[in-house]
C-alpha cells in the first residue's frame, strides 16, 4: 500500500452537455512526481482544477493528506497553469508578494521570501520593474516563484517548461527536484514525453475523460515491453538476418531490434551470438518509449499527443 498524499475517488465533472471527467480515481504518492498525460481535452485540466479547488466535482471525493479537500487547503497548494498569467504592469516584487499573501502568508513573511527567491533566481535587479519589462524567460521564473515560494505541500505544474530556453528550463528543473527532495508532492501535466521519462515517478494516462492507465513508470515500461531486444554488433549482418529464433523489427548496419517468442530472452540471444563470428558490443532489453505506449493506448484516431514546439 503506497502512502498517498492525494487521492481521488470516483470523480466526475460535467460541463453543460459533456462529461469532462468520468469516474476518475487516482492516488498521488507522497513526495513523488506524478505525471498526468493525455491528449488535449482528455480531462487533465478539469481534474487539476478540481484538485486546486477552482471547481468542485459533481460526484466523488478528493482526499488531501487524508482529509476531504476544503478551501483551507489552498494555502498548501501551488498551482502554475499552462497558460501563464501575471499582471503585466505590476512590479515584480509587489506582484509576487501579493500572490503569496493571497495564499495566506503574512505580508512580512511574503516580502521576505519574495526577496530571497528573486535573489536566488537572479532577478534581484528587476524587483522594482513592471513585469512587462522582463524577458519571457524571466517572466516564467517570476511565475514559478509565485507558485512555490509559500512552500506548498502539493505543487501542480501544467507544462512548466513550455516557452523556456534550455538554460532556464534547467534552472526550473533543478528547483523542482530540490522541492521533491524536501518532500513536496508534485503533479506534473505535460505533452512532452521525454520530460515525463526524465522526471516522473508515476503517471496517469487520460483519454476521453477517463484514466486508462495509472502506474509506476518503470512498471509501465516493463508491462509494455514486448520481449524485444536491441543488439549492437560489428560484422556480417546476415547472421542476424538469417537467424530464425527471432523476428526482426529493425535492422541497420550495426544495430538490430529483434523480438523473441514468449519464454525466451537474453540468455538465448547471447548463446546464439556466441556461435557467430560477430563482435557483440551490447545486448539490452528494449524498453518502449512512453510515446509509443501512449499512441498504442490512445489510438491513432486521437489527436497527436506530442506537441513538439
Amino acid at each position, binding site marked *: 500500500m503506497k502512502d498517498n498524499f492525494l487521492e481521488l475517488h470516483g470523480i466526475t465533472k460535467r460541463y*453543460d452537455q459533456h462529461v469532462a471527467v468520468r469516474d476518475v480515481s487516482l492516488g498521488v504518492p507522497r513526495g513523488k512526481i506524478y505525471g498526468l498525460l493525455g491528449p488535449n481535452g482528455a480531462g487533465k485540466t478539469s481534474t487539476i482544477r478540481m484538485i486546486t479547488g477552482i471547481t468542485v466535482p459533481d460526484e466523488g471525493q478528493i482526499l488531501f493528506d487524508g482529509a476531504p479537500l476544503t478551501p483551507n487547503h489552498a494555502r498548501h497548494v501551488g498551482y502554475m497553469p499552462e497558460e501563464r*498569467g501575471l*499582471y503585466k504592469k505590476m512590479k515584480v516584487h509587489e506582484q509576487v508578494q501579493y500572490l503569496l499573501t*493571497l*495564499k495566506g502568508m503574512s505580508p512580512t513573511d511574503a516580502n521576505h521570501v519574495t526577496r530571497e527567491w528573486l535573489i536566488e533566481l537572479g532577478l534581484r535587479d528587476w524587483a522594482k520593474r513592471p513585469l512587462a519589462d522582463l524577458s519571457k524567460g524571466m517572466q516564467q521564473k517570476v511565475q514559478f516563484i509565485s507558485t512555490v515560494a509559500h512552500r506548498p505541500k502539493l505543487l501542480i505544474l501544467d507544462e512548466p517548461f513550455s516557452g523556456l530556453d534550455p538554460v532556464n528550463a534547467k534552472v526550473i528543473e533543478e528547483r523542482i527536484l530540490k522541492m521533491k527532495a524536501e518532500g513536496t508532492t508534485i503533479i506534473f501535466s505535460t505533452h512532452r514525453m521525454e520530460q515525463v521519462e526524465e522526471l516522473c515517478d508515476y503517471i496517469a494516462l487520460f483519454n476521453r475523460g477517463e484514466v486508462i492507465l495509472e502506474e509506476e513508470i518503470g512498471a509501465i515500461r516493463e508491462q509494455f515491453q514486448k520481449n524485444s531486444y536491441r543488439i549492437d554488433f560489428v560484422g556480417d549482418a546476415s547472421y542476424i538476418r538469417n537467424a530464425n529464433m527471432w523476428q526482426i523489427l529493425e535492422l541497420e548496419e550495426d544495430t538490430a531490434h529483434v523480438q523473441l517468442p514468449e519464454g525466451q530472452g537474453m540468455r538465448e540471444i547471447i548463446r546464439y551470438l556466441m556461435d557467430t563470428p560477430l563482435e557483440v558490443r551490447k545486448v539490452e532489453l528494449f524498453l518502449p518509449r512512453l510515446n509509443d505506449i501512449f499512441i498504442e493506448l490512445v489510438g491513432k484516431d486521437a489527436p497527436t499527443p506530442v506537441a513538439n514546439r
Partner: protein
Amino acid sequence: MEKIWIIFKREYLNIVRKKTFLISTFLVPLSFALIFGIQILAAVFVEEENYTILVPSDSSPLITKELSSTETLNFKVTDAPLDSLKAQVIASKDKLLLRLPSTEQIRSNDKLSLDIVGTQTISKAVKKEVREKVEQAIKTDRTRQVGITELQLEELKFDLKIKTQKLDKSGEEKSSNTAMASIIGFAVCFLMYMLMGIYGSILMQGIIEEKSNRIVEVIVSSVKPFQLLMGKVLAIASVGMTQFLLWMVLTLVVQAGIGFIAGPELMMDSAGSQPGMEVDTNELQSTIAELQSFDWTVLWFFPFYFLGGFFLYGSLMAAAGSAVDNIQDAQQFTLPVTIPLILPILFVANIIQNPNGYFAIATSLFPFFSPMAMLVRMSLVEVPWYEVVLSMVLLVGAFLGCIWLAARIYRTGILMYGKKPSFKEVFRWIRT
C-alpha cells in the same frame, strides 16, 4: 473577509496611483472652473467695437434727429448718394450703413425693420445698441403723437421680477429658481451616468484583462471567485467615492479662490460707468446667489445612489466581462446593460417638467433608473421621505440580486475560453 481586503487594497491602489486617476480628478473640476472663468472674463472684458454708422440724409427725420453718438458708435448723417456710401462701407470695415424705415411706415406700421449693412458679421452688442437707439426715437415720436409727455412716460415705467419661493415644512421660505434647479438636476444626472458608465467599464476591463492574461486562474486557486469579484467591485466603488470627495473639496477650494480673486473686481465693475456691462455682471451675481441659495441636500444622497447604482450596473458589467475573452466580444452583453443606463438621460426633461408626476415618481423608484431619476427630483422638489426610503430599499434589493447573478456568471465565465458564449449558455451558467 481578509482575502477580500487584500484584493481590495491592491485594486484600489492600482487605480488611484495611476496618472489617469489624478489627471481626471483634477482636470474635471479645473475644466469646469476654467469654463466658468472664461464666461466671467467674457462678461467682464467685452472687446470694444467702434463703428461709424452712415445714415443717408433722406431717411426719416423722426429718427435721424434722435440719433446721438455714443462712445463706441458714431452716427453720421450724410448727403452722399447711396452708391458712394456703399463704397465707403466696402472700403472700411469700421463703417456701417444704416437703412431706416420711412416716416409713413413708422407712423402706420407695427412691424418695422431696419437694415444694418456691413462687410463683416455684426455683433449682437452693436445690433442691440442700434436697435435701442432707433426704438427710443420711434417711441418718442409716438408718445408725442398720442400726446403723452416724456415725463408722463417716465412715470409709467416700472420693473417687475418674478421670484419663486419654496415653502418648507417649518414655514420658512427659501427662494428657489426652477431654471437653476433644472440645470443642476441635469448636471447631477449626467455626472451620475458618466461615473457609473466609466467605473462600470473600468471594472469590466479589469476583469477581461485578468481573464485574458490568465492570472485569474492563479488567483481563484487561492481565493473564491466571489471574494475576487467583491474585492474588485468594492475597490472601484471606493475609487469613485474618493474621486467624488476630492471633487467636493476641490470645488470648495476653487469657489473660495474665485470669490477671493474675482469678488472685488465684479463689485467694481457693476458700480462702474459702462452701461452694457452692468446687466451681465448683475446676471452673474444673481447666478452666484442662486447657486448659494440652492438646496444642496441632493449632494448628501449622491454617494448612496452612486454606490447603489454602481453595484447594480457594475456587477452586470462584471458579469459581461467575465463571459468573454476580449473587449470587442463584450459589446453583445454590455448593450442590454447600457441601454437602461442611458434611458434616464433621454427622459430627464420629462422629470424636470413635472418632478412630482407619476412618471417621475415611477422612474425614481425603479432601481435601474432611480440613481439618476431620484437625484433629478431631489434637485427640483422636496421628495417625500417615504418615497426616498422606498427607492433606496428597492435599489439595495436590486443590486443584491444583480451581485448574486453576476457572481454565478462570473465563477463559470472566468474559466471559459475560446468561443464567445451565447445568452442561452450564460443563462445556463446561472442555473448550475
